[in-house]
């Protein structure tokens, strides 16, 4: 089984603060990998390093290597725009653009220079169908996305991300702002999406990690304490700290 992403000895600093320490982890293709751990342990910083969103922060510094399909994504020759097209991201808070539903999904296609209207329409429809949102919005594609419920907005954000056909989808606590019904819908969606995409999901919710992911990594204070098959990590963890966390003794 090939790895989509290989991270070796990753260290991340914001100014003097050492946020991620010697992170090494391999992410398998077309699998869901969960990142769990208490708040402030570096999970979000880690996935934002994978699509170079941390580049926006002036004080960001890193060492180590991150390979995507064997290529170093921090190589000076790498086009960040191209990387982010391959590594899509869904954020914690649903953040649709203040545009119509259609334009939200078409946005990524248009900025990548696609002009063919029929193609865009088809892709928007396919993406909304894949994100299990089509039936709810097909009558009002020209309405503002801000009028949708939180759960619908988050599925719209997922549709917007898959429309540009990334290889990897990073999800930063995608359900933390949603109600249980919307959460179930998104989890069902994640099951479906892993056929086509490699998914890395940050979650606070350990049940969610067991429900959606094949692999899990446990982060604590900027380090990976333990990673491996989700079933193994939750049933017979090797590290005492993992056991304490998953049994609810802290975090």
């Amino acid at each position, binding site marked *: 089984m090939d790895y989509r992403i290989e991270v070796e000895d990753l260290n991340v600093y914001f100014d003097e603060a050492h946020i991620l320490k010697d992170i090494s982890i391999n992410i398998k293709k077309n699998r869901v990998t969960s990142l769990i751990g208490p708040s402030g342990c570096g999970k979000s910083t880690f996935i934002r390093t994978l*699509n170079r*969103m941390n580049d*926006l922060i002036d004080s960001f510094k890193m060492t180590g290597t991150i390979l995507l399909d064997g290529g170093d994504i921090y190589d000076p020759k790498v086009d960040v*725009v*191209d*990387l*982010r*097209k391959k590594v*899509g*991201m869904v*954020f914690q*808070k649903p*953040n*649709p*653009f*203040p*545009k119509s539903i259609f334009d939200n999904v078409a*946005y*990524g296609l*248009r*900025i*990548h220079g696609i002009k063919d209207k029929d193609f865009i329409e088809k892709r928007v429809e396919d993406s909304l169908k894949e994100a299990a949102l089509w039936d709810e919005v097909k009558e009002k594609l020209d*309405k*503002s*996305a*801000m*009028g949708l419920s939180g759960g619908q907005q988050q599925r719209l*954000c997922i549709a*917007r*991300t898959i429309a*540009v056909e990334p290889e990897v989808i990073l999800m930063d606590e995608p359900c933390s702002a949603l109600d249980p019904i919307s959460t179930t819908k998104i989890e069902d969606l994640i099951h479906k999406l892993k056929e086509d995409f490699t998914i890395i999901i940050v979650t606070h919710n350990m049940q969610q990690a067991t429900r959606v992911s094949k692999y899990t990594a446990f982060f604590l204070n900027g380090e990976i304490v333990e990673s491996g098959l989700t079933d193994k990590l939750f049933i017979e963890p090797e590290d005492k700290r993992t056991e304490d966390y998953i049994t609810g003794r802290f975090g």
Partner: protein
Amino acid sequence: MKDIGEFLIEKGLLITAFLSIIIILLIIIFIFSEGLPFMESYGFLKFIFGSIWDPSSGDYGVLPMIVGSLGITSLALVFAIPLSLLCAIYMAEIAPKTMRKILKPVIETLAGIPSVVYGFFGLIVLVPIMRIHFGGTGFSMFTASIILTVMILPTIISVSEDALRFIPHEYKEASLALGATHWQTIKNVIFPAAIPGIITAIILGMGRAIGETLAVIMVAGNVAQFPTTISDPVRALTSNIAIEMGYATGIHYSALFGTAIVLFIIIIILLVVANYFHYKKKITIGGGYL
């Protein structure tokens, strides 16, 4: 005891809130009571669409001044809008923090310089340059609009820069995460989302331009005639009042109040139109949520 204190504070705030409204209402009533009887006896249409302003022979047509005011203002907006929006985008999105920290206070200081200083600069520097390069006296609609451009730039820059910076960071991240470049993000997400605020900025700039008196008097030439080219001298509505009020008596005096009414109505119309677009744009882009 506490209840009385609360009562007094609430009523006190109510009175101060009403005070400003009452002052404005009193000024409006005063202007209308001085100007309306004249407009009625002279004829509304004759006054507004009359093309000759010659108090000595009893002609009081303000159309040349209406054209003058609108001409100067719209020219100034044509110059100022692109300049100030590009500057605002630079400051909000592209400038490094230290650059922004220098630019912002400098631009806000520009807004605080008294208009007579701008007028004086225009008179001493700009008018001779215009005379040499465009012929004529140098006192013209073009010269006035350039001075006004400089005067309204800081207002439009400052307010639209705020509008651009208050766009939620999430929009920007979402766009970049989809593989958009910084410029695509500015053009397609940040700028459109800031349009309601930018319209407000333009309204404020326009209000300042159309109401500006002194700087315009100093460089516009103030001839009450229709300009045929932009290098012709013009007289603005504001200038008309300020220049002649000192010696006007009788009907002439009332006619100047009539001029003020016209200016007042033009500003109201512009504000209503601008607010309509501001509101409409807010609804369409935000779905009523922004």
